[in-house]
């Protein structure tokens, strides 16, 4: 079943009267419960595309349909995980995660139950009353993830959710993220420029080209989970996508 339909999205910025095309014509659709990555070189318009999906920016043309509604502006049906997490530093972990549930007037007892469950899957027990500055990078990332889940969105949008951590931490977080996702099975669109991350996590990878952002490649990753990074097929997918990314980069 199709969850999200992206239809001929076009985005231009005008600078000094000159029109700069960032996204030329982007169309794809995502099935319910899938983990889709958008891969592309820096500056190709990944963040722009994702924030149009979130409703933070308006597209110049085209339309987005979530379920059976047209998207126009931000809403709690789409959870967002920011590149820098954007946790509210003046709120504790608990207050951050409760925030979306309170906004949606979820009854208190149900709120408490959801909170306990989410804290459990993010392994943040005992950290409920910590402020974000008292958390490690990984804990922040997990808090941002469960905060986005707490509002029970229909789809989760993530902008390089592991961009701010180092390589070893990144692999560990990817594994954690996968196991969190396997428990929740929500539709996810993740932006990344890391090929390994895309192959490890996704059911499908969309590659954007650098110049005139349009889709260069759109292919499934049909490997069993959890994935073995040393597997031959895994390496194959990585090599293929890396080659594509190099090509995407050369175009610019």
């Amino acid at each position, binding site marked *: 079943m199709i969850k999200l339909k992206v239809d001929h999205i076009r985005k231009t910025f005008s600078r000094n009267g000159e029109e700069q095309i960032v996204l030329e014509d982007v169309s794809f659709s995502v099935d319910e419960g899938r983990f889709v990555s958008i891969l592309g070189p820096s500056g190709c318009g990944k963040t722009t595309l994702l*924030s149009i999906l*979130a*409703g*933070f920016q308006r597209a110049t043309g085209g339309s987005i349909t979530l379920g059976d509604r047209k998207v126009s*502006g*931000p*809403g*709690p049906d*789409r*959870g*967002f995980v*920011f590149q*820098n997490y*954007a946790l*509210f*530093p*003046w*709120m504790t972990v608990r207050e951050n995660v409760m*925030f*979306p549930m309170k*906004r*949606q007037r979820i009854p208190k007892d149900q709120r408490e139950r959801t909170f306990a469950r989410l804290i459990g899957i993010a392994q943040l027990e005992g950290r409920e009353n910590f*402020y*974000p*500055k008292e958390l490690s990078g990984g804990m922040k990332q997990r808090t941002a993830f469960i*905060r986005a889940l707490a*509002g029970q969105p229909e789809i989760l949008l993530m902008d390089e959710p592991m961009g701010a951590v180092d390589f070893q931490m990144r692999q560990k977080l990817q594994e954690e993220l996968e196991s969190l996702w396997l428990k929740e099975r929500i539709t996810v669109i993740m932006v990344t420029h890391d090929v390994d991350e895309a192959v490890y996590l996704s059911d499908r990878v969309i590659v954007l080209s650098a110049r005139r952002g349009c889709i260069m490649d759109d292919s499934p990753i049909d490997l069993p989970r959890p994935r073995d990074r040393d597997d031959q097929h895994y390496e194959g997918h990585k090599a293929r996508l890396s080659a594509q990314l190099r090509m995407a980069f050369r175009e610019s």
Partner: protein
Amino acid sequence: MEKITNQIPKNISISAFLGEKESLRVRLLSQAVSLALFILLWRRMSLYYNNQLLLPTPGSTFTAFIGLFGDPEIWENLLLTLERVLKGFACALLIGAPIGLLMGSSKIAMYMFDPLLGCIRQVPLMAWIPLSIIWFGLGNGPTIFMIALAGIFAVVLNTVAGVRNISPDYYHAARSMGAGTWCIFLRVVLPCALPDILGGARLALGSGWMAVICAEFIATSAGFGFSMVEAQTRMETEKLLALMVLGALVGYTMDKCVCAIGNRLTRWK
């Protein structure tokens, strides 16, 4: 609009490049040494000029200072002045912070208030005293007005800077979690700008404390500033100096109190 900061920012490790160690002993010792040097210099100079009317010695100033504690009139005047400062400060905060929040949040409010405030701010504070006497007569009225006026711009400008520095990501995050405009104001804008509002409040209290003494020189016949004028006309210079020392200590204590309250309120920082 730039934010006013004429204070050494806290949380900055001054000793970073000299590699000095931070410890209570070093701190107390340095403070004691600087105080001792200051008093020694003062003493040398007063002995050199040898004129109690021009520059009393630290010793006679200290005696006068102790004498202040036995003088109920001084305490009445000090309490009166403190009351004025707190009232004026409250006015500056309660008027300044909402204006700043409005200007930081809305472009229209910014266009409306910015030139106006920018001009009024340029009028020297002391130039307001004659008008404030015409408006409010003598006594509490003009002094409270002067205190509020002295502090309000710091509150407004710091609040504006605080609101404008809020990352758009926080707004986006709040919206995508279902928050409305009013909720974003209460749960995002206000707490996020609070440290800057408190910074403005600290400056406002400081300038209020300075303004009140000046205002009391002229616009009233009671209060701490008036006590000073009295000491001067009676040619009791050592009492005048003792009052200045007391004024400095009271101001310092108030500043530390505001800092402490601010730190309590922004423990998440």
